[in-house]
């Protein structure tokens, strides 16, 4: 019984996070209040606080939720018996796929998490709140070097190249500057990234 109740509570928490994500994307992080989120989900404000004690805690849970969501997708790719070149293509493809179908997630990561570090300073020191995602990127890099496809270098110089590039493209799409849809860039971008990182 208690497991069922916990599952239900978890599902409700995820609904709240999804609702909050959409509001943050449309109204902005600071302009969105807990009552706004409660209203959009047809919940009482009091009940909202049963799930999240403050907006900062909600913000932290959301970034962890996104990190786990993306981390799971990368783990599936890392676990495949394919070359690092193929993995590169799949990671780019999945990242753009999330940016197309769940734009609020990538938007939150780029525009809220990275731009409002003061909100996350207390509980998300270093990369704690995005650990699941970063761990999978590390595994992708480490295995690429180990199998001789990628050049050994400082982790952050490779990480910055990979994630900065993808983030930049999603940002350009969000600003309506890109002439084509994101998925049409998968081939070129994965080619460029692989070429830049390979031995």
């Amino acid at each position, binding site marked *: 019984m208690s497991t069922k109740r916990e599952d239900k509570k978890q599902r409700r928490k995820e609904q709240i996070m999804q609702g909050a994500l959409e509001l943050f994307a449309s109204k902005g992080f600071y302009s969105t209040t807990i009552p706004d989120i409660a209203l959009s989900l047809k919940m009482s404000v009091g009940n909202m606080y049963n799930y999240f004690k403050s907006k900062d805690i909600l913000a932290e849970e959301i970034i962890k939720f996104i990190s786990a969501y993306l981390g799971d997708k990368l783990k599936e790719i890392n676990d495949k018996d394919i070359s690092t070149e193929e993995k590169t293509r799949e990671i780019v493809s999945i990242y753009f796929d999330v940016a197309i179908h769940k734009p609020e997630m990538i938007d939150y990561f780029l525009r809220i998490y990275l731009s409002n570090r003061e909100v996350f300073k207390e509980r998300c020191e*270093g990369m704690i709140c995005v650990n699941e995602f970063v*761990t999978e990127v590390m595994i992708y*890099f480490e295995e690429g*070097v180990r199998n001789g496809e990628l050049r050994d270098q400082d982790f952050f110089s490779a990480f910055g190249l990979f994630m900065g590039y993808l983030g930049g493209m999603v940002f350009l799409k969000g600003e309506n500057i890109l002439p084509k849809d994101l998925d049409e860039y998968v081939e070129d971008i994965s080619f460029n990234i692989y070429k830049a990182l390979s031995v």
Partner: protein
Amino acid sequence: MKTKILWLSGIACNGNAHSFLNYPYLAQFIDDFEFIYHPIIESTYSLEEIIALDLESDILIIEGAISIEYKKVDEPIFNLIRRYAKGAKRVLTVGSCATFGGIFSESGYRDSSGLHFNKDIELDNFQEIRDKSISISGCPIHPDILVGVLYSIKRGIDIPLDEYLRPKEFYSYTVHNGCTRNEYFEYKIDNHNFGEREGCMFYDHGCQAPYTHGSCNKILWNEVNSKTRAGLSCMGCTEPTFPKINLFSTKKNMGIPEELPLGVGKRAYLTLAGVTKAFKIKRLEERLF
């Protein structure tokens, strides 16, 4: 009655024979044991007599790598081992050369190897004495471990062994166990200069202690110290992979150590690393005094 020991040197530097001399209670030891032959300690018989006669020996100790080509005087060492192992209760390989081939597997003698292993590959040779063999790996061996095993044999104490025939009593731990730098390891702070007290050498300085089996930090050397305590990386000398190259730098792939602490999965390691890296502990970043 004294237990008789024959100490045979193969292709060796005699480092283990010398290390044994550091045993602090040798006077007591020689009351209980007799070397019918030892390369550097006065013995009952000469090497020529050992070869010419068939003498009684309870324990055969082999030091150094062996090869079918290698001879003592004119006697192939393979023959000597077979002859003396037959009557011995136990056969001990002392050092990593006698156990796995070690440095002297590069000796130039044909197929130089340990008694039962060439690196981590088990050999077909000498299978008939495998059940009485015990490996005491290390470069060199710790005298307390050798003496501990010898007394266990003398007293008929059961000696559980691992897959490389090493006594679990001494080799089921990693050298990391008991290292005084564990706090630095926990928070992933290398920040070390060789010979200094501060920092964990696993992350940048090539320390192999978290995946090397041995008791160096539990049974100290000369009763006072160990490599890692003194500020030098563990070189993994008890393992079949010894010696490796680049002993003083950690092989990393994009910042991630290629070899992780024993039994720790890559994902779990990276998750933990992500959390601990978030700590900024000033106390551990500075000199202690």
